């Protein structure tokens, strides 16, 4: 039970599915050291099996009585997808480009597939990171007590000195956001970019999100957008609240989309292109009310009335979307002045007690 809890709100009405977040995270953390197959941040097209494939059916989290549910540990080969390589060096020699591993499943395999009968098709994008839950399923599942929440921000981390690579955390996480690193023989997961947070920078996925969908701040910061979206307007909802882990990533659910068409091609007013029931199955009971609030405030804005909610969701200044320290603007400058950023002492060397070697230098 951390003293403070940092949280993220993602506005699904603004998500364009570009995956800049995914790639930002990849180059920041997971393109090396046994993490290659992992996507700490992924974006999936809903409805769809997601990543890892069918994660929503893989158990974990807590049942209605509050007891940890059994879960499964996904397979890299058939659920995550083995990160395939190419014979890039052979193209110059006249070879055709070929993937060196079978192309059967991948982290974005179901992109844009969606559901519905054309022209009444529907889809939307759902970016996912570790939810840094208040009652983490992974933490509860770990028989080693290796998983903890940081006091200062509630970020959930895996202590590699304690982790034995047992993978019960993976089964215990209902979002399947803990990954096993076969090279380290340890579990790893999204760390909410805490080394960036410590330097006043938002997580890479959030800062680099070009759709400007991600707000980062502390839940108890009553002036912050995160607090207002979650508590004041109640338009930001956790994903699968029924899993019982109290996620700290919140989503503004997507509005139902353009009208559907009748058999003659005539638009049907107020038709739910994205079925509300489906949205409720993802974001819980508050979905209907949240969408009503967004619609109502949007209408107010359209009629020229002020709307704090619309102001927040529009986000006039990118830097203002992140309230991770008292003076975020000033701290953001750190990155622009590299010397200042490096002035604070960085640890000389990673201390690891693993039986396998850890290298921290990017290998690509």
């Amino acid at each position, binding site marked *: 039970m951390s003293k403070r809890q940092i949280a993220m709100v993602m506005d699904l009405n603004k998500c364009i599915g570009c995956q800049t977040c995914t790639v930002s995270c990849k180059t920041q953390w997971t393109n090396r050291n046994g993490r290659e197959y992992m996507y700490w941040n992924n974006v999936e097209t809903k409805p769809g099996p997601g990543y890892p494939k069918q994660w929503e059916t893989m*158990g974990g989290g807590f049942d209605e009585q509050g007891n940890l549910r059994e*879960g*499964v540990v*996904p397979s890299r080969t058939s659920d995550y997808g083995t990160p395939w390589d190419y014979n890039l060096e052979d193209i110059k020699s006249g070879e055709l480009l070929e993937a060196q591993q079978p192309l059967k499943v991948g982290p974005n395999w179901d992109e844009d597939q969606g559901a519905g009968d054309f022209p009444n098709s529907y889809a939307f994008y759902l970016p996912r990171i570790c939810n840094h839950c208040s009652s983490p399923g992974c933490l509860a599942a770990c028989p080693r007590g290796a998983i903890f929440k940081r006091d200062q921000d509630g970020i959930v981390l895996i202590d590699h000195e304690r982790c*034995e690579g*047992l993978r019960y955390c993976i089964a215990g996480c209902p979002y399947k956001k803990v990954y096993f690193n*076969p090279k380290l023989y340890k579990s790893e997961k999204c760390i909410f970019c805490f080394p960036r947070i410590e330097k006043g920078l938002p997580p890479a996925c959030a800062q680099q999100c070009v759709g400007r969908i991600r707000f980062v701040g502390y839940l108890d910061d009553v002036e912050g957008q995160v607090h207002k979206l979650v508590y004041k307007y109640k338009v930001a909802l956790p994903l699968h609240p029924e899993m019982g882990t109290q996620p700290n990533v919140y989503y503004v659910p997507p509005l139902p989309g353009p009208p559907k068409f009748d058999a003659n091609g005539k638009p049907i007013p107020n038709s739910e292109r994205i079925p509300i029931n489906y949205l409720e199955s993802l974001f819980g009971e508050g979905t209907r009310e949240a969408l009503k609030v967004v619609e109502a405030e949007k209408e107010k804005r359209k009629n020229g009335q002020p709307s704090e909610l619309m102001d927040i969701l529009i986000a006039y200044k990118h830097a203002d979307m992140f309230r991770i320290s008292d003076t975020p603007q000033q701290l953001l400058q750190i990155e622009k002045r590299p010397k200042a950023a490096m002035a604070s002492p960085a640890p000389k060397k990673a201390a690891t007690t693993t*039986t396998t070697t850890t290298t921290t230098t990017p290998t690509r």
Partner: protein
Amino acid sequence: MKMHSTLLALAIHAGAAASPATDRFLAADGIVVGSAPAVPATVDDAGWASAMATSVVVAPQSTVTLNDKGANAFRQSPAPGNVVVRAIASPTELGVLLEWDDATENRFVGETDSYGDSAAIEMPVAFGAGQRLPYIGMGDAGSHVVVHMVRAMDQGKVTTRHAVAAGFGSLTAAPLGWMKTGMAWQPKTKRWRALFVRPLKAPEHSVDAAIVPIAFALWDGARDQRGGNKVLSAWHVLRLPGRAPDATYVAELAFGYGDGDVGDAARGQAMVEAICLSCHRIGAKGYSPPDLAPELTNVGVLSSYSYLRDSVMTPSAALVPNLNVNRHQDRTKPKDDNGAHAHGSLGAFAVNDGSGTAQSVMPGFGAMPKEQVADIVAYLKTLGRAPSSPPSPGATP
């Protein structure tokens, strides 16, 4: 810690007297350690033929249930029933060779759902007269264990882990590099062999004694076994050659083998079902939610008589360590500011009484008539899967 610290002392105490109880105990739980000028250095060394093979029953850990659906599904079907143990002591070293059946050679191949076959031995940090045995599941707060583990890795490699532990979740890496290990697959017989060789005396830990408690654990990668999903033995004792056992200690260990130590299992069963099953479960039997108290399905195979007796009478002295108390939320309590549920009492076998000492949540039955306790112990000791086949001595190396 009681130590037979010099070779000189060993010679003096050789040839102590025995009783029927201790004989029965040593026959049941003793492993005779052979003597040789040097411990054979590899699993395939012909020198192991000189050691007596002892078949030790192993049963699935069922006290607590872990949350891997796949692994739990495998638990429903029979698991390996025994491990053949050979041990040889040289003047300076002790070697223990384990050998067990396994239908498949499973190595960790770098996949997320790949688990290597593994084996481990555990020994108490301290043992001897007056020192109770640690809880079989990696010790407890009052009695620590050292654990050595080998795991089959990709491309014929083996990983070794050395650790100390004081109960579930407490495994702590220890730099016990003096332990030499080996692990090899025998394709013809479909058996694994694992070897542990250590100095009799090491700066941190010595086993230079006539009676050395030891327990064994095996993991089958094909059944997704790792961590607490394993099969294990009860405490056994290595009987090192040329040393006289401490009679007091042996007598303590031999409780349960003496006449009158235990009572009538049938009467015990009735009592267990009337009393214990309100909290404990034995497979499908029981009235409580799972995890409220240790599951008893294999308690007879995994526990000694004395442990069972102590558990009934003075549970706080024979604690089963908590697994992870966060596995159960108490939804009757309000959430904290960040929406976190308080963890519930379900799953906490022990609670801190405020003085820093853990107290079992189970009420002690110290006031229960001794005969009834003996009946209960008798019944509990029958719980567990009998070996599916007669102990197999295994092929001679």
